[in-house]
């Protein structure tokens, strides 16, 4: 059940009080800032999405390559030097 705070015969706000908050130019500004903001998400823009996928693939391949190189270096260090015997 909801909690209510009952107020009886509350006087209506005066025109001055209401007029203080009325500002159409401010509303117009807010409207502009909302509508001019890019509303198409990145994943819905084909070009941007492809570029994003490409960046992710390149980053992934580079990470794999670096990991591979690290492993090779590590293996080379661990292998004991070979002695030639006659």
């Amino acid at each position, binding site marked *: 059940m909801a909690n*209510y705070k*009952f107020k009886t015969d*509350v006087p209506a706000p005066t025109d001055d*009080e209401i007029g203080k908050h*009325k500002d159409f130019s401010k*509303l117009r500004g807010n409207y502009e800032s*909302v509508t001019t903001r890019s509303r198409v998400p990145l994943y819905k823009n084909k070009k941007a999405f492809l570029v994003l996928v490409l960046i992710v693939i390149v980053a992934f391949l580079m990470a794999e390559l670096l990991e591979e190189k690290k492993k090779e270096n590590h293996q080379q260090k661990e292998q004991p030097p070979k002695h030639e015997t006659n």
Partner: protein
Amino acid sequence: MNPHHKDETYLRQELEQIEKARINPDGFGVLYEKYYKQIYIFINRRTDNEELSSELCSLTFLKAMLNIQKYTDRGLPFSSWLFRIALNEVNMYYRKHKTERCVSLESKAVRALAGESPAGPDEDSVKRLMLALGRLSEPDMQLIELRFFEERAFAEVGEIVGITENNAKVRIYRILEKLKTLLKGRS
């Protein structure tokens, strides 16, 4: 005459203003000037807070401006659609902040409503009615506020709450029955 009733000429003129606002956002200024006071008072009755009323009022008009292309004429004043947005904003505020919901009552309307109870409109029945009102759910309270404390037509009540006129009549009738039961239980 119901203060919320508007004739056909008024509604036609208003549709033209809406069309202008659809084409050019600056045209919305006429509707803003026309309805700011009504919407502010509507919100203020439900918040009793000047700053909050102003904030919710701005949000209401911003949403109306952003969604004016979706507005469909149902033979009711544009204000009904604005009241609907405003009510949603008020509801969202209370849902988010979980504070006590403000309900503004006119003692005259409370007495009239109490007159519908079996006990009649004396001081005691008014007190009991207030207690019974406190036990109503939020959607029920909203219907009572719109119909009895703001004296709106069933069609407008339905439009604001998002139900049909008939549904509004049935639901309000049921709420009155519920109030009568609650009052009987307390007497």
